[in-house]
């Protein structure tokens, strides 16, 4: 009796090994020919035939479930397989757009539709930004991938697309042009012109850092700046002006404010409100020109609510008072933008030494 039991358990183990061989080969894309497989193991012919029939039947039934899993996993897959590790993300993570992380190796990033991802250039509350190549047109773009993929329902998704389309109609020398908005394998993205530069948030951080080092007579060179090549020219220029405490520094700050205000004014004439003007959304290119980015996205964030980071619509610190004071959140467009630009200037100016005593705390 015991011998019989042992024999049957040995037989069971043998069967499991055989089936494992089949399934693992199939997983590797090299499923053995079924008839040949059955013929190779005549002693298990019944069990194997039964297993394979059930296996295929279940596989078919599960397909729709797996497909929807795969669609939703689009973002996961990108996060897991394409992204460099998340180390270095600090509490200021929402303002790191434009910071270049060269410490991560430029691994094979993969492709999303017409776009070949080249490297991650930043991440914030609204998603991860990649430098990418639009394959069909062979042009460099900044591809923003929206982490919450779709909103709660298709109407909200449609509203997001409408906003993005409206933003795509903006043509201004200080607004980052939107090339496309789309969805690929369930991943929603937003393609913009690639601006070789840094965000004002980075610049402000560098200035603050430079100020600390100034006492030691050191040049304000952070790790980020040294590695990012051309794009730091603007920062470098401002830093120099700043540390020399020249009039040119104030002039530069004023120019940033003016260009921002002009671009916002233009957008408001077109009836489009940015709703989330803050240093992280203002890019400075290598010539020191300002580019406003992320038009049309704040609206979307309001619809998905607190999904990603718990941030409110419009990073509160930079929302203009005109917008804050109205309960319905619909200020007149130009009042809104002017307030934002003014608040921004207040943020850049403290970086000059005379204000340093009252330098606000950044989180």
């Amino acid at each position, binding site marked *: 009796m015991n011998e019989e039991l042992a024999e049957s358990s040995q037989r069971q183990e043998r069967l499991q090994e055989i089936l*494992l061989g089949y399934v693992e080969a199939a997983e590797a894309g090299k499923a053995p020919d079924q008839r040949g497989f059955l013929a190779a193991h005549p002693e298990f012919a019944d*069990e194997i035939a039964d297993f394979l029939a059930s*296996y295929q039947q*279940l596989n078919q039934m*599960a397909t*729709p479930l797996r497909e929807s*899993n795969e669609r939703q996993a689009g973002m996961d897959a990108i996060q897991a397989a394409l992204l460099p590790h998340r180390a270095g993300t600090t509490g200021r993570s929402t303002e790191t757009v434009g910071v270049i992380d060269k410490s991560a190796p430029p691994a094979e990033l993969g492709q999303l539709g017409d776009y070949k991802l080249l490297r991650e250039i930043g991440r914030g509350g609204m998603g991860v930004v990649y430098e990418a190549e639009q394959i069909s047109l062979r042009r460099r773009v900044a591809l923003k991938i929206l982490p919450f*993929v779709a*909103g*709660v329902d298709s109407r909200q998704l449609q509203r997001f697309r409408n906003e993005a389309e409206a933003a795509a109609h903006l043509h201004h020398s200080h607004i980052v042009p939107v090339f496309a908005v789309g969805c690929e394998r369930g991943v929603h993205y937003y393609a913009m012109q690639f601006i070789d530069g840094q965000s004002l948030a980075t610049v402000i951080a560098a200035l603050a850092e430079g100020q600390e080092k100034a006492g030691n007579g050191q040049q304000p060179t952070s790790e980020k700046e040294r590695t990012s090549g051309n794009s730091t020219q603007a920062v470098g220029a401002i830093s120099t002006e700043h540390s020399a405490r020249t009039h040119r520094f104030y002039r530069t700050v004023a120019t940033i404010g003016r260009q921002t205000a002009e671009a916002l004014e233009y957008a408001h004439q077109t009836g489009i409100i940015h709703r989330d003007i803050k240093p992280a959304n203002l890019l400075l290119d290598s010539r020191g020109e300002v580019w406003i980015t992320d038009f049309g996205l704040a609206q979307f964030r309001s619809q998905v609510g607190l999904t990603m980071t718990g941030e409110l619509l419009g990073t509160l610190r930079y929302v203009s008072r005109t917008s804050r004071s109205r309960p319905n959140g619909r200020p007149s467009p130009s009042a809104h933008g002017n307030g934002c630009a003014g608040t921004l200037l207040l943020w850049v100016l403290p970086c000059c030494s005379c204000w340093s005593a009252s330098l606000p705390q950044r989180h």
Partner: protein
Amino acid sequence: MEVRGVPTNEHQNWELEGFRDYLRLLARLQLDPRLQAKLDASDIVQQTLLQAHEHRDQFRGQTEAELAGWLRSILANTLAAAARRFAADARNLGRERSLQDSLAESAARIESWLAAEQSSPSERVLRVEELVRLASALAQLPADQREVIEFHHLKGWPVAEVAEVMQRTKPAVMGLLFRGQKKLRELLQEAGEP
């Protein structure tokens, strides 16, 4: 379990019970493993069915597939809200960032799943009945056999990964798969022949 001929709006006596296993299966597939420890799929489904019952006058469909879709959307909202609550708790408790991220991502994923569900209804119509039957049969399997089938077939994980998650050897996983599939097929055949 009778799910065919689901009553439409006019009928007061409609049968939601038949969808319980189906919704539980979907909830288990959607929940992040870290969330599964905190959120009981059965509780979520109970809330979902209660809500559906309370708001039954809002259901506008006629068919079983439409009813299933409506229930799925309630389930997704319930799941996403629960995941978000946990994300907020984790933040308040100063839990590590990766947990917060993982919870927030779960909530986002559930919403995107719902959007994907709604965007391609036509192909799904045919499958609902089949999936409801599958879910009922799965619910009758021993837990370890059911898990192997859910991980391998429904989530599409390779055997090696299933073995790792379940802390068993790969041949042992194949044994569970073999027995689970066999039993499941019998159950499905019984259900298919009234």
